[in-house]
């Protein structure tokens, strides 16, 4: 086991910054280089849709469950999509059992926000009977081995699982028959791909490992659309960002967003 402290020691951090100045990261990558990425669909037979995403030693499963429920009173003809993330103690010695902490809530909400704000799908298409019955789509993001960058990898896994999903059959009595699946897919009009850019010293890098995350001064997650527009932002970390930082981060995220999107489209055959 490699137990990684939550905050990196100053000596180690200085060493890391020195190597970044030479353009090299601890694992030999370049600053703008993602770890080798793989996406596998249909990894859970019980989920309506599922995907396993791996990048380096990080691996995360997302699974989609669909059920019928009562719509919210203020949106009687709209279905609901919710993303949930858990920092499973299985996946890292730093994670402990218990109710979701702020870290997992942030991850879920940032992924959720990208999907919602991009109007990735038409919530009205999930309506079965206005005011009475709508589809509730729940996507759960579960790390199996956590080595950093859960927002981006969890976001990709969630999108892949949503693309993989098929609606279950509804019986004559209006209940869901989970043993029969239809051909109907979720109509995703956008694929909002989150890209997190970290800042250590004056250096910007993508796809940080857990160790690099422990040294980040700041990070910015930019959720990218196909045409290059942004649909969600989330700044994290203790240090501020300059206007120049943000400009560079936007351009880096644009480039990486294209790469991740191409991988997603390739795997899901869209």
């Amino acid at each position, binding site marked *: 086991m490699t137990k990684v402290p939550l905050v990196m020691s100053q000596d180690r951090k200085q060493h890391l910054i020195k190597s970044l100045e030479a353009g090299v990261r601890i694992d030999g990558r370049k600053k703008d280089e993602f770890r080798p990425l793989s996406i596998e669909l249909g990894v859970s037979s019980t*989920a309506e849709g599922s995907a396993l995403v791996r990048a380096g030693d990080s691996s995360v*499963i997302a699974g989609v*469950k669909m059920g019928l429920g009562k719509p919210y009173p203020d949106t009687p003809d709209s279905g609901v999509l919710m993303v949930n993330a858990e920092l*499973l103690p*299985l996946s890292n010695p730093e994670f402990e059992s218990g109710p979701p902490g702020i870290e997992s809530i942030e991850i879920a909400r940032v992924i959720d926000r990208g999907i919602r704000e991009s109007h990735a799908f038409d919530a009205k298409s999930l309506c079965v009977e206005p005011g009475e019955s709508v589809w509730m789509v729940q996507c*759960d993001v579960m790390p*199996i*081995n956590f080595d950093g960058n859960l927002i981006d990898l969890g976001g990709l896994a969630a999108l892949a699982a949503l693309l993989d999903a098929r609606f279950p059959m509804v019986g004559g009595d209006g209940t*869901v028959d*989970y043993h029969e699946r239809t051909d109907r897919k979720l109509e995703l009009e956008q694929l909002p791909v989150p890209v997190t850019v970290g800042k250590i010293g004056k250096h910007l890098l993508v796809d940080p490992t857990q160790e690099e995350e422990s040294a980040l001064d700041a990070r910015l997650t930019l959720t990218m659309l196909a045409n290059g527009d942004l649909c969600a932002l989330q700044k994290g970390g203790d240090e501020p960002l300059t206007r120049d930082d943000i400009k560079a981060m936007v351009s880096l995220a644009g480039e990486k967003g294209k790469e991740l999107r191409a991988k997603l489209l390739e795997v899901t055959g869209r």
Partner: protein
Amino acid sequence: MAYERRHDGRAADEPRKITAKAGVIKKADGSGYFKIGDTAAYAAVYGPQECHPAWMRNPKRGILRCTYSMMPFSGDGERVRPGPSRRSKEISMVTEKALLPVLDLDDYPNAVVDVFIELPETDAGSRCAGICAAAIALADAGITMKDVVPAVSVGQVEGTLVVDLDGEEEHMDENAAADIPVACIPSTGEITLLQMDGVMEPEKLLRALDMVRPALDRIAEAQRNAIKERYAHSAGGGAA
């Protein structure tokens, strides 16, 4: 009406297709993956490490703490709410009891060995799959063990004894079905997990226990092979 031909064509004492791997979670001290049919379990071991809360500590030997958990999308029907339930707590406890007899934790007073079990998909037999994955993970973590612990269920469908019921068989016969999860220590034949749901005649139970033995041996073989394979390749193994 007797259940003579199983719906998936298996022989009465034949388990479903098995996949077993060790070392699938690099951040853990030891890990295992066990899949039987459409029921899959990951297990990760952390420790021996300092035990919190302190009142759980045993000054004589280390303790084993298992946590069984179904992923929210791993159930047969609706989403399962994350977090512990009465069911998952009981399964966690019987998992501990199933594994403890093969472990030697005397060298770790006051410490805990944590085993986390997560299931991405289930089609009956999930506690047994969890125990199988956990045994691989404990061996992978280098905890002293006198044997592996295989587990599988045996049960009755429409009066016929069958091994390793799947979800369809569990629900086939609501009145006369019985399901008995069993774990054993292969070298001694001792049973470390035994539960039953359903109704069964006493002599049939003993026949069921005899009948399940070959499947348990087969699973133990798969578990041993998983551990051997992990060390046959250089460090690493297959990542999750």
